[in-house]
């Protein structure tokens, strides 16, 4: 296919897409109006299943299959990074010496680490009640662990972070999501259907059926994935050097 034909094809396709976009934009409701047909139905379904956070209900109950896709996207992205950033044969590891950090910074980092970890777990656990959920809380928890690198140095972080354990945790959490979905299938309804657990009391921690379980699975998956991702980046930036060693 010559260059001119390619450009003509691009122009035709682009023109068609632009026409459809303009037609759709002219038909949109005004900004800030109060006509939300999909929103009304989603809120109604969420309240029927005693889930206070409608976003969590949409993510983990009404469209749980899409969230499974998003989780596997993160999983695949981390696998890709691990493969790209692995230590190759013409590189070697050069352990850095311990670094000196000002005392107020170190004290602050070590004080804030448990608070941030707890906040991450709190955000995961309250996903079905208040803004938050598995993804947000998982990232907060994983970032809090790296305060050990920022407040001390890389060797301190490596001691509390055996990477193999986190890689296994990532895989286990992804499987847990799928298994919870299969429970719906075995229970006689559909994959990822929210009918296997009682809906519980509205606005308490035990409400929403399978939503808290899927929240926990996604939280663990995201936290482990982020830790593994940062581990590869940190290894390449701080430890791995070119050449076959001195």
């Amino acid at each position, binding site marked *: 296919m010559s260059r001119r034909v390619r450009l003509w094809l691009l122009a035709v396709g682009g023109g068609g897409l632009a026409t459809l976009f303009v037609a759709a934009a002219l038909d949109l409701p005004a900004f800030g109006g109060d006509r939300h047909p999909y929103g009304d139905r989603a809120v109604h379904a969420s309240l029927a299943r005693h889930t206070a*956070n409608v*976003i*969590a209900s949409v993510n983990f109950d009404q469209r749980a299959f899409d969230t499974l896709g998003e989780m596997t996207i993160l999983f695949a992205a981390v696998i890709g990074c691990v493969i790209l950033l692995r230590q190759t044969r013409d590189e070697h590891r050069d352990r850095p010496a311990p670094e000196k950090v000002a005392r107020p910074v170190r004290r602050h980092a070590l004080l804030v680490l448990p608070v941030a970890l707890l906040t991450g777990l709190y*955000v995961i656990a309250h996903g079905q009640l208040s*803004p*938050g*959920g598995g*993804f*947000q809380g998982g*990232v*907060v928890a*994983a*970032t809090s662990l*790296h305060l050990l690198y920022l407040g001390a140095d890389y060797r301190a972080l490596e001691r509390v972070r055996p990477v193999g354990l986190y890689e296994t945790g990532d895989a286990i959490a992804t499987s847990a999501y799928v298994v919870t979905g299969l429970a719906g299938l075995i229970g006689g309804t559909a994959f990822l259907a929210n009918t296997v657990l009682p809906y519980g009391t509205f606005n308490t921690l035990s409400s929403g059926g399978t939503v808290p379980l899927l929240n926990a699975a996604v939280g663990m998956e995201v936290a482990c994935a*982020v830790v593994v*991702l*940062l581990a590869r*980046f*940190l290894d*390449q*930036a*701080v430890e791995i*050097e*070119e050449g076959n060693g001195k």
Partner: protein
Amino acid sequence: MADAVIVVALLLVAVSATAAVAVRDPVRQALVLSVLGVVLAVLFTVLQAPDVALSQLAVGSALTPLLLLLAVHKVKRRGRKEGRHR
């Protein structure tokens, strides 16, 4: 008048995003991207989308700058080593 806050947030996002594109050096760009992340989170809050705002805060405040700066650090180290060998 509640729209005033929405207008302020939108203006801040527009200015930060333009600044993020206009700044060319990766290190300075990482600083601007960090501020852009916070301003985006405020915009999402003002438009009543707190879950999205929380995601933006979690990812954009510490994770994205760390990834960017580690990549820049690695490239600079390799450049310095090659310079020395030459």
